Every structure is written in C-alpha cells, then in structure tokens.
C-alpha cells in the first residue's frame, strides 16, 4: 500500500543529539528570560531544566526499547517548542509579579503540566504497542468524544470569557475538547478506513462530481453537527474550526474526492453565515477583525480589537531581530502567555525567531505527514494525517488571527501556550504520531505478516486493502 520507502535505520542516536540541542535551546531561553529580572538560576530554572531533561530522555529511552524506528526529529522539535513556551510563560510571570506582588505564577504549574503530559505520552508509548490497536475502539471513541464534548455543559462546566469549554477538576480547570480532538480523530480514522470503499463506490455521478449516497454522508453530517454544536453551545469558534478541519481532511484523504471538500466548504460557509447572523460574539469578532483600528471598535467591551491591535504592536516592536528575551513589553497584550504567546515570542525573538518557531511546526507537521505516507495501514494513514493537519490548522488559525490574516479566535498555540489540557492532548498526539512513524519506518519482516497483522490483533475490517489501492 505504501509507495514511500525509508531505509530502515534506527536513528535513535541522531534523536539523542537533536534532543540535546533542543534542551540547550529550551534551557537557554529560560536562562535568558530570568536574566536581569532576578537571579537567573532560581528554583524555576532548575525545575524547568530538570523536568524537560529527565522526561525527554525518559521518552527517548522508551523509544530506544519500544519503537526504535520511530521518527528521530519529532521528539526534539516538540521538546524545543515546549521549552521555549515555558521560558516565555516564565518571563511573562516575572513582568506580572513586578506589577502585582500577589500574582500567582503560571509557569510552575505549566512545568507540572509538562511533566504530566510527557509522562502520559510515555505511558501511552509503553501501553500501546501498536497504533492499530486503537482501531478496536472506533465506536467507543465516538462515545467518549460525545461525553467529553458534553461535559462542559453539565454542572461541572465553567464559563470563562463567554466560552463554556472548561470543566473544574479540583486543582484547576480542564478543556475536555482538547482530548476529544484525539478521540474524534480515532473514530473517524476507524470509521473511514473501514467504510471507505462503500462511500467511494456508491452514489450518483453528476457531471464531474461523484456525489456520495445520503447515508454515507452521515459522518460528514456528524462532523458538521459537532462543529456547529460546539459553536452554539460552548461558544468556541476556534475548536469548532479545528474539529471541522480535522473531519474535512480525513474524509478527503479517505476518499480522494474533491467533491467532498467542496460540500464541506459549502456547509461550513452556511455554518459561518448562520453564526454571524445568530451570535453576536461571532459577528463582533468579525467586525473587530475588519475594523480593528477604528476607535469605537478598539475599546468596545466585549469584542473589542484592543487585544489583536496590542498583539500587532508587540510584533511590530520586535521587528526583524526582536527586543531580546525580557527586553520587550509582551505583558501589555492580554492573554500573552496563552492565546497570544506568538505575539510575545514575535516581540522578543523578532521575525527571525518566530519564523524559526513556525519552521519547527512545518517540520513537525511534515514528519507527521511523512509517517502517514509511510505507514501501511489506512487507519494509521488517516490518523497521522488528520492529527498532523490539525496541528498545522491550529497554527494557522492562531498565528493568522494574531497577525490579522483571519479573525482572531481563542485557540492555544500547540505545545507553547499556557494551559494543561492542550499540552496533554498535544503530547498524546505526538506519542501517536511517533508510534505510527515507527510502523512506517520499521523494516518489514516479511510480506505475509504485514497483512495478517490486523487480524492477529482481532481488528475487524478489511485487512487486505487490495491491489486496486496500490495502483492509486
């Protein structure tokens, strides 16, 4: 099924070398953030360095034992992104503490979350021998997704800034939607890899468009419903776009039909139109995107453009080379350490620094796509491609929003923004992509074993994805 071949070499030593480089970047950034503000080698410096160092080496060792052919670039990139994010969150803490001595620092909690997220990724790597096992949980994933998405609407839910996407979990808040992103991806990968032949072959052909049968539209409709539901009931435009993008790309990859993408885009067009008409918060966001520099829009509450405009000022202040860590004023931007962290990074690291960060994402997404190309099972392809694409889409929505390319929506920057649920979900995604890349790059012991593998695991479905596939 795969027409992409990799020379089967482990490359774990390359990973170790890159990992040390990534740790140097992460710890160095943290040192610079602390310099001149307090003694740079404080408690936080060591907790960040030790957490990142120990946990990433731990994951590296797991990969050496459990998945030694996994992609060697992914882990170092993610460690670097996570570490630079921690440094910026810490740096913003120091500014906030200067103004308000009672300020509760965010960074130590984020370090804790990093440890939890990396630990969870490690556990997933150990427990999940092969990503194809997940295919067994296709419909369970759907149910879990539904529960996760509904949780914020229960009494457990919390409404913050008009969006109801958090739940209270004792020591803090959690966004179940972040995890739902993974479970929904699993469901769609499982559903589409099982039923893609049916979806592809049935249905009428009108002109150049091969239209699917109505009942095959069901997953599509489900995706649309979930997205619109999230938008209506949770008032979270960002997540809604993300879910929809995830489904769209997976359906497209499963069917290779542009018609499906067109239908999808038409549906999202209707959704956006309806949202603009029905929900003032969406309309306000749209208005503060178009007219960001109008005085009456700037100071409007809620839905003013002050945040995005201040973010632009920050980016402009950074210019080409940036002010240097600790030398800018990213603290002037609201939510600088979460939604707007790219503005903070752009200000202090400059265009050069923020382009470097975006390039890390480009490489990360490309390696994920590479894993999708390389793996031999449809489920793995869909999962890896969907999850990787989600990271790209999320970067696009966040950075595009900050730079006023598109309306600003509240989304986290993967691995960098303050927020535990997003970090945990993204690290789990990394673990899944690592596992898929392992199967993509692992030397095939023999042809028959590959094909019989799914049955051996007791997965229902169509193992022998036929000669027709390979010609595609």
């Amino acid at each position, binding site marked *: *099924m*795969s*027409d*992409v071949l990799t020379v089967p070499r482990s490359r774990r030593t390359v990973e170790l070398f890159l990992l040390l480089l990534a740790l140097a970047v992460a710890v160095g950034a943290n040192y610079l953030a602390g310099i*001149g503000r307090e003694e740079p080698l404080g408690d936080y410096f060591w907790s960040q360095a030790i957490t990142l160092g120990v946990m990433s080496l731990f994951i590296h060792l797991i990969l050496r034992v459990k998945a030694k052919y996994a992609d060697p670039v992914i882990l170092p990139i993610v460690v670097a992104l996570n570490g630079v994010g921690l440094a910026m969150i810490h740096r913003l803490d120091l*500014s906030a503490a*200067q*103004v308000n001595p009672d300020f509760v620092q965010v960074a130590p909690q984020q370090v804790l979350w990093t440890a939890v997220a990396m630990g969870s990724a490690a556990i997933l790597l150990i427990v999940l021998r092969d990503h194809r096992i997940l295919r067994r949980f296709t419909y369970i994933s759907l149910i879990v997704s539904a529960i996760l998405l509904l949780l914020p609407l229960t009494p457990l839910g919390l409404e913050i800034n008009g969006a109801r996407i958090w739940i209270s979990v004792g020591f803090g808040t959690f966004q179940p939607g972040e995890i739902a992103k993974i479970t929904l991806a699993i469901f769609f990968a499982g559903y589409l890899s099982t039923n893609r032949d049916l979806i592809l072959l049935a249905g009428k052909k009108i002109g150049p468009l091969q239209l699917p049968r109505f009942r095959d539209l069901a997953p599509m409709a489900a995706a649309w419903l979930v997205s619109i539901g999230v938008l209506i009931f949770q008032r979270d435009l960002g997540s809604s776009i993300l879910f929809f993008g995830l489904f769209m*790309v997976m359906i*497209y*990859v*499963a*069917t*290779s039909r542009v018609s499906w993408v067109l239908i999808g885009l038409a549906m999202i067009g209707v959704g956006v139109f309806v949202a603009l008409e029905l929900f003032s918060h969406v309309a306000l966001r749209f208005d503060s995107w178009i007219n960001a*520099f109008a005085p009456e829009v*700037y100071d409007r509450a809620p839905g003013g453009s002050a945040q995005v*405009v201040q973010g*632009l*000022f*920050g*980016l*402009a*202040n*950074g*210019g*080409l080379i940036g002010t240097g860590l600790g030398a*800018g*004023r990213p603290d*002037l931007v609201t939510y600088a350490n979460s939604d707007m962290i790219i503005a903070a990074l*752009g200000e202090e690291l*400059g*265009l050069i620094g*923020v*382009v470097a960060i*975006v390039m890390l*994402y*480009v490489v990360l*997404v*490309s390696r994920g*796509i590479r894993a*999708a*190309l390389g793996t031999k099972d*449809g489920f793995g*392809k869909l999962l890896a*491609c969907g999850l*990787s*694409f989600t990271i*790209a*889409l999320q*970067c*696009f929505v966040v*950075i*595009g929003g900050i*730079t*006023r*390319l598109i309306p600003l929506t509240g989304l986290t920057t993967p691995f960098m923004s303050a927020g535990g649920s997003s970090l945990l979900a993204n690290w789990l995604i990394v673990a899944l992509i690592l596992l898929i890349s392992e199967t993509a790059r692992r030397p095939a012991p023999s042809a028959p074993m590959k094909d019989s593998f799914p049955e051996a695991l007791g997965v229902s479905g169509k193992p022998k994805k036929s000669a027709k*596939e390979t010609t*595609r």
Partner: protein
Amino acid sequence: MNQAIRSAWVVAIGMFALVLGSLTFVQFFQAEDLTENPWNSRQLYQEFGRQRGALLVDGRAIAESVPSNDQFNYQRVYNEPDLYAHLTGYYSLSLGSSQLELAETEILSGTDNSLFYDRVVRLFSGVDAQGANVELTIDPELQRLAFDLIPEGQRGSIVVLEPSTGNILAMASKPTYDPNLLAGHDTGVIAENAAALSEQPGLSFYTNPATQSLVSPGSVFKLIDAAAALESGRYDAESQIPNPPALEFPGIEYSLPNFVAGGCASRPTADLEFALEQSCNTAFAQIALDLGEEAIQEQAARFGFGETFAIPTDVVASSFPSDLSEPELAQSAVGQFDTRVTPLQMAMVAAAIANDGQLMKPQLVKSIRAADLELIESPQPELMQQSVSQETADQLTDWMVNVVDNGTATGAQVPGVAVAGKTGTAEFSDVGDNAWFTGFAPADDPQVAISIVMENVDIPTGQQLTSPSAKRLIEAVLNR
C-alpha cells in the same frame, strides 16, 4: 490515499506560507506604522523604563531618574523644582516633555548618534541601556540670586550671559511651578495637576518666559536705534538731534511725548549720549524716521531679531514690525507698538555690545557626559554674527556707562566698577508697565551681560526691581 495525503500536506504548507507571509508583513513592512500608532504605548514604556540621564548644574542633579517600584522602573525627580522648572521643563507620561527634557531627549535617553559607541559597548557587556547626562552652564548661586531678586507674585525674568562665550549663567522666571507634579506615573493625577497649574495667573508651564514670552521692550530698544544710527554713518557722537517735548505728526491727532518727569526737557536739541542718558523718545523717534524702517529692522536682525534658534531649547523670534506708518515707526523705535522681544534677546543685545560687537550664540549646555560622567561632547562657543562694528560697540559702551553714571540707571552703579546699562519702561494704559534693565559689566572687560524685565509694575516699583538687581548680580559675578 497517498496522493490525497500529499495534497493535504500541500494545503498545510500553504497555510504555513500564508502565516509566514503575514508575520513578515506585520513585523517587517508594517512595523514602522504600527510603532508610530498613537495607541501604541510601547515606545512610551520603553522610554520611561530606561534610566534617563540627569540634568546637572555644577555637578548636582536638578533632574534625575531614580528607581521606582512600578512598571516603569524609574521615576523622574526634579530637585529645587521651583528654581529650575523653566529650564528643565517636564518629562511627563501624558503631557510629553518640554524645554531641556525635550531638546536633549535623545542624549538623556541614550538614543543620540553620539552615544552609538557607548550603546554598542553596553550591548555586548550586558549592562542596561542608560542615558547620558547633560551639564548646564548655569551658575547655581547666581541662579538662586536671580530667582530671589524676582519677588513672589511678580511676573518677571532675569537672564545673565557671559558675553565672550554666550554661556547662560542664570535664567530665572516667576511665577514658577513644580515639574514633579507633572512627572508622576498616574495620568489622572497629572491631568488634575496640569489643570490646577493652568489656573495659576501669569503661569504658562509649558513655556520658558525668558526665551518664549514676547514682551514690549520699551526704551531698552533705543540701544538698537543708537546702533543703527552709528552703523549708518550718518550719525556720530557730535550729531545734534532735535529734542522737542513731543513729536507731532501732521494730519493726525497723535503725538509721541518724552517722559514728563525725565531730564529730556532741559535741552531742545540732544546728542546721542544725552538722548540715551535721559532716554529721550522724540530724539530716537526722529532718528528712526530719518533712517527708515528697514535700517532699524536690519540692525535688529543683526542682534538676532526675527530668528528662532535653539540654545538647545527653543527660543522664540523677537520681532520689529514692518509696513509701518510714520507714527507707528516712531512708536516702534522706542520699543512700543508691535515691537516684541524675549528677555533673552535683550541680554543678547547687551552681550553683543559688550563683546566688541560680536554676538555669541547663547548656550545652556556646558557638556554631555556619559552615565559614568566621562566627557562625550562639550559645545564650543559659536559666533552667531557681527552685530555692530567694534567702533560702534565701543561708542555704545561709553554711552551706556554714562547712563549708569549719570542717567536713568544709577541704581546699577557698583563702586569701583564701570557698569554699562540701559533702562526701559514699556507703557500700557491698562495693565501697568514693563520695567527693563539691560547692560553689562565691567565695561572694559565684560564678564556678564544682564537682562531684567518685570512685567505689569508701577514705575517706582519697576525701578526698584531692575537697576539695583543688576547691581547685585554684577557684584555676585565679580566676587565669585
């Protein structure tokens, strides 16, 4: 399926490309516009967050930035604020800055080109950016004396120059204010204080009265008439000028009188020495009518009229009016009508006469020093222009000494020292008079040129506050 995955990758790369493009647009192409946007407080924070250099007088800071515990890191503090307010100006979060704080802001904030090397060194040594210090030419004791010579509640200015260099030794004005009121970090409080200061009569806190308020010079302007007369070659020490009690103009009901209680009436004709000694209006009016408007204007311009310049704070141009009718020219020539001068301008006239006719550019800054007080730059005395020939200057000096010895400025006499001077009274029917003294001493080796103006006073008070004050200042300088 792989082809679709590749397409998905292309879309992902396309999104990243868009994002990189918009980042480049914002951070590179749009950066300057965004930085200059009035809503962008970053420049302000950046500027106020830096340790700004101090303004120094004789090694002591009159304005300095001290560490503060708020988000700006530093607080601007003015020492002896009343005394120096009009020189330092203010450095305010919401009102901008003024005077030296404005004129020397690049030096003080450390962004001036002359500090480039210093900045590079700091960049590599990791030391925080710091502004340079500006040391003033002001003599603190003389400044204090000048300040105290203006009574509380009196609107007036005193300027003391060193004629040979143009250095400003003292420049004091009242009413004054406390710039600390405008330098806080609470914009609400600043607005309140600014509103309160605006209510204060006679005070305009954003200007320095000595360099930026224009007042009628009255008879001190006769020095310029006398200079024009000598420079024209048509008048000399021997020339006799008709000196009627009043100058009539045919066809209109206006006459320009000599000062009723003065000594002018004793002579029907006067030479220039006598006319200056007794400040005879009619004699000078006739000289002006004879020489013409342009000649007077020309001479005034050679003393610096009609020109704005920086010392480095802005100095407003003094002006002699143009397109005048004969009565208007007559009035303007005796410093009335639309003739307007800054207190500094009249000190410059005295200083130019004192310095053999050479007008030195007034200078308030003695040196620029780095944060570690290392000398970066010290402005050299600069010749503005030759105002009058040396012969004219010598002749005017003799006549001005005579004014102090025998004429209207006897109050300025200093025992054992030849003082040159000229008084003036600009008359207003409604608000009282402006009393002037301008002069220099010692006449043979001038150390100091002085200009004093007291606004809206009655004549006896004005006389008390001008010539005797000049005497005190001259004594203070000579006893230094």
